[in-house]
């Protein structure tokens, strides 16, 4: 149950309890007083009757009221009713005033001694009217209680909502915290429990952010330290390879170093956490991207088709396709088991890198893009970088793979044609844009 509902219910429950308690106390005290009054009245009347019987005074009289709401009986010791006013059915003998029901009436009965005889005086008051007042009071109390409870419920719900608004705001901000760069949530409320919660949350986010920053800096430092020597080793091994093209050791060393260089470039992209050059989007023909990668990895299969344009950074797109091809080559071990194809799907341009390698288990596919995860087939940093770069291009990286059936990565990017206002139009024929180089002689 939501906290708001619980608080509202608590408010209602509390109100009900308080109202019921107050109502019960008030009602009981009223009933007790009324009882007391009725008994006093009855005792008084009984005293007056017996006094009159004891010493009849001139002019003194006792007249049960005309409404017939009282019953007076003088009963002989034999139990016969000698005198009866109001009702001749003998009333019971009681020690203390007692309530009885008779003929649809509620009577309060008291018994006294009949002076000079061994008989008794029995007097009863009809207390129906008093009981009706009691009932009315009870009904009024219950009605008032219900009303107060309803009002309390409404006020309680509204109040709890007001009290919880800062919490809801904090939660909303917390949900929007960017995991890559966690920032604290804003809160300008009082230093109460919510304030404490926000402080604790912001403290935790801050600590995480600092830790992340420290890790990023460490990664930068490491990459930095490796950068110059790696550039040099890669360069010189390249030169050695040119000099000894047939030496398998040299070839392996040169290729390994090149991979090392690519991986450290990937690490740098991750460490920076953003696209290196977001400044110059270009119209890129994906065929050029794939052909550049194919140049680096001769022997892979190609299925390119016609011009396929997207908007992006050509260097980064090359990095994406290169990583996917490298990945596939590592899985298969031979270039003819890898094919790169271009196609379209509605408004999307699709680069598919397929291999007929061992494929991946469901678990590996599921975790393939996790940062730093390395399953079978060299899945790891490279793929994480790929996905980041593709997402920074507003696209999507997909993976389909199953054991024994090979893997297929798909880079999906919005086609330029879908982004052009006025619809897709191939550049008109005969609109070759060319240039005339400046004449060095004429320029000077």
């Amino acid at each position, binding site marked *: 149950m939501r906290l708001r509902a619980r608080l509202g219910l608590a408010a209602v429950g509390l109100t009900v309890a308080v109202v019921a308690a107050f109502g019960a106390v008030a009602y009981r005290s009223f009933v007790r007083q009324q009882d007391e009054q009725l008994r006093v009245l009855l005792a008084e009347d009984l005293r007056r009757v017996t006094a009159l019987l004891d010493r009849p005074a001139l002019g003194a009289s006792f007249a049960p009221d005309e409404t017939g709401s009282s019953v007076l009986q003088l009963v002989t010791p034999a139990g016969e009713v000698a005198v009866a006013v109001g009702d001749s059915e003998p009333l019971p003998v009681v020690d203390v005033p007692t309530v009885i029901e008779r003929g649809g009436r509620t009577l309060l009965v008291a018994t006294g001694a009949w002076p000079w005889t061994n008989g008794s005086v029995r007097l009863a008051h009809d207390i129906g009217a008093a009981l009706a007042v009691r009932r009315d009071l009870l009904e009024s109390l219950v009605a008032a209680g219900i009303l107060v409870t309803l009002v309390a419920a409404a006020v309680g719900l509204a109040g709890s909502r007001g009290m919880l608004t800062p919490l809801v705001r904090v939660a909303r901000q917390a949900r929007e915290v960017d995991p890559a760069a966690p920032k604290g949530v804003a809160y300008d409320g009082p230093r109460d429990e919510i304030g404490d919660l926000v402080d604790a949350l912001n403290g935790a986010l801050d600590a995480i952010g600092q830790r992340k920053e420290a890790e990023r800096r460490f990664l930068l430092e490491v990459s930095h330290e490796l950068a*110059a020597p790696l550039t040099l080793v890669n360069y010189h091994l390249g030169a050695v390879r040119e000099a000894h093209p047939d030496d398998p050791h040299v070839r392996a060393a040169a290729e390994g170093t090149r991979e090392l260089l690519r991986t450290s470039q990937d690490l740098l992209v991750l460490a*920076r956490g953003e696209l290196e050059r977001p400044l110059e989007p270009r119209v890129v023909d994906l065929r050029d991207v794939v052909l550049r990668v194919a140049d680096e990895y001769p022997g892979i299969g190609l299925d390119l088709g016609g011009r396929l344009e997207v908007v992006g950074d050509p260097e980064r797109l090359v990095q994406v396709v290169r990583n996917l091809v490298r990945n596939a080559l590592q899985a298969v071990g031979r270039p003819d088991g890898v094919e790169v194809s271009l196609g379209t799907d509605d408004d999307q341009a699709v680069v598919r890198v397929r291999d007929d390698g061992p494929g991946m288990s469901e678990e590996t596919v599921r975790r393939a893009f996790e940062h730093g995860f390395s399953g079978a087939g060299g899945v790891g940093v490279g793929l994480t970088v790929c996905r980041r770069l593709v997402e920074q291009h507003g696209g999507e990286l997909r993976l389909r793979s199953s054991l024994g059936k090979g893997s297929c990565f798909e880079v999906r990017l919005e086609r330029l044609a879908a982004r052009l206002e006025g619809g897709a139009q191939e550049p008109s024929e005969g609109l070759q844009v060319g240039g005339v180089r400046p004449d060095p002689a004429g320029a000077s």
Partner: protein
Amino acid sequence: MERERILIVEDDPQLARALEAELLRVYDAVVVATGREALTRAETEAFDLILLDLGLPDMDGLDVAAELKDNPASILMLTARADVRSRVAGLYIGADDYLAKPFDMQELLARVYAQMRRRARPDVYTAGPLSLSLVDRTCTVDGRLLELTAHEFNLLALFLANQGRVFSKHTIEDRLYKESTPTSNAVEALVSRLRGKLADAGVTDLIETVRGLGYVTREREP
């Protein structure tokens, strides 16, 4: 034809030697190891390109770039300081491109080549019947003169000189209106007027709108 000249500013002697050896195959290359030397050489000699390492022993490479802002040479920054802010600052200060270490020598050569090609700007651009001369600042379609304002001419030149690049309104503003601050929709209006004039002369679809990004003149297939 004279070889293009490159000034290599790099304090790591081994890397400097490797760069020199590679670049000397195609270009004329000179190596210096400090920012001071770089500024002195750049002042007294003409270079086409300055290959500038950001991490120098005596000066911050960014300061060197700032002082070289008015030098006609292109600047290609080399950096191991893998910090986005310094990258962006580098481009802002006036570097034309940059490359992060570690890099593949082929990659560096490609970037250098691209810079050199960019420097070799043609004096006249043609696009079908359209011809734009930067020398006498005229634009003709099928030989007939097309009257353009200075801003319209500069905009058309910008697109033709940077085919394939998508320009945001903001970038166009920066490039075209250096001194004054234009009104909010000035670029849109300018593009619209230029398109109108081109369309009247029979040239359509030269400048296209990329939703959410800006405008582009696409490279045509050769």
